[in-house]
């Protein structure tokens, strides 16, 4: 069963929840898909056993074959190509902006002159390691790089069917979050009972409903703020899977990267219970009984 942990708002406790969930399971796979700032390895401290560079294909134009017809720029959905016709002020040229290219291949496919071939552009690395019984995989996007989705997809290619998989998703509700949660059997949304927490929670709920993914909520720092998040979950029939009260001890252990701290050990039974409940919910499409 594949469970993804997302949030909308950042800093609500995705990593805390996903790591504790993974540590309460037998031989799971843990995927840190927050490739823009992966941090789960700081807690798990896995030994890395393999590493691969990930690239996206970007067009390379052979200007000796190019007629500067402009077809490639016209079909590029990301506006990553400019074709300058030859004229009085300049000779013909094709400018490719690799940072905007998503590697879809349309330009090469539709070039009438066969002037475009693809060359790899590195965007980051995927590493695989082990810690105890956990099969650990994470991606790390190159600094300054904006194209995180292909890297997230590559991290997810390591998923082995039949295993319990925990995916730590990036915050937000845009392409990287969607790439991370897509295809999972259940999504846990971690939020906090504040107006900001609720606002982003609602956005994340809308995304998951569009994706038709069953989901439930974990309310972190559940004894601060107001009741609007609980009220919303009640009204929308979103199961609240766990409430984690605010605790200075948790914050201290987290800030030291000590996920094996007794304060987390005490929560492991709750996480095992949550996993059992998710199994049941997932079978019923995420609605409470």
């Amino acid at each position, binding site marked *: 069963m594949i469970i993804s942990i997302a949030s909308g708002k950042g800093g609500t406790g995705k990593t805390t929840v996903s790591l504790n969930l993974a540590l309460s399971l037998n031989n799971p796979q843990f995927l840190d898909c927050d490739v823009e700032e992966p941090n789960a390895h700081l807690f798990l401290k896995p030994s890395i056993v393999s590493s691969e560079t990930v690239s996206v294909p970007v067009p390379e134009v052979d200007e000796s074959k190019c007629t500067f017809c402009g077809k490639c720029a016209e079909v*590029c959905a*990301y*506006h*990553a190509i*400019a074709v300058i016709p030859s004229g009085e*002020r*300049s000779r013909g040229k094709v400018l490719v*902006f690799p940072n905007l290219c998503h590697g879809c291949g349309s330009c090469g496919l539709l070039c009438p002159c066969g002037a475009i071939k693809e060359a790899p552009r590195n965007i980051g690395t995927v590493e695989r390691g082990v810690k105890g019984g956990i099969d650990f995989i994470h991606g790390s996007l190159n600094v300054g790089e904006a194209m995180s989705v292909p890297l997230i997809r590559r991290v997810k290619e390591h998923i082995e069917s039949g295993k319990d998989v925990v995916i730590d998703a990036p915050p937000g509700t845009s392409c990287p979050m969607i790439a991370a949660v897509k295809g999972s059997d259940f999504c846990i949304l971690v939020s906090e009972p504040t107006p900001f927490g609720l606002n982003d929670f609602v956005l994340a709920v809308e995304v998951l409903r569009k994706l038709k993914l069953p989901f439930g909520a974990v309310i972190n720092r559940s004894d601060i703020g107001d009741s609007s998040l609980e009220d919303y979950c009640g009204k929308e029939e979103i199961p609240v899977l766990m409430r984690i009260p605010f605790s200075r001890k948790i914050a201290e252990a987290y800030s030291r990267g000590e996920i094996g701290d007794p304060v987390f050990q005490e929560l492991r039974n709750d996480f095992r219970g949550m996993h059992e409940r998710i199994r049941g919910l997932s079978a019923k499409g995420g609605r409470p009984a």
Partner: protein
Amino acid sequence: MKICITSAGETLDSAVDPRFGRCAYFIFLDTDTGNFQARNNPNAEFQGGAGIQSGQLMAAEGVSAVITGNIGPNAHQVLSASGIDIFTGVCGTVKEAIEGYKAGKYKPASAPNTGAKSGMREK
């Protein structure tokens, strides 16, 4: 000679739009006849690549000079590769910009004067 001024509106009394790639209108002017044509910027709402595509439009239109407020790095690269003169930091009305250009008040900009995506913030 054909030049282009980025404009907030369709007339010469409109303000110069400080954005290049995401300006509201491009005003194409024939400096010999004084005839002009205002065109809606088809790239204004692009998520990315607005400067690149607006730069390509300038090349396709065969303009010799672009007069605007700010130019980002990608647009600058396309315009430079097209051999188009770039005048940045221009404000006031389009008419004033044309007069300033004809009077030789502006110096060509050899580098971008704003970052990528700045036109999305300055809307």
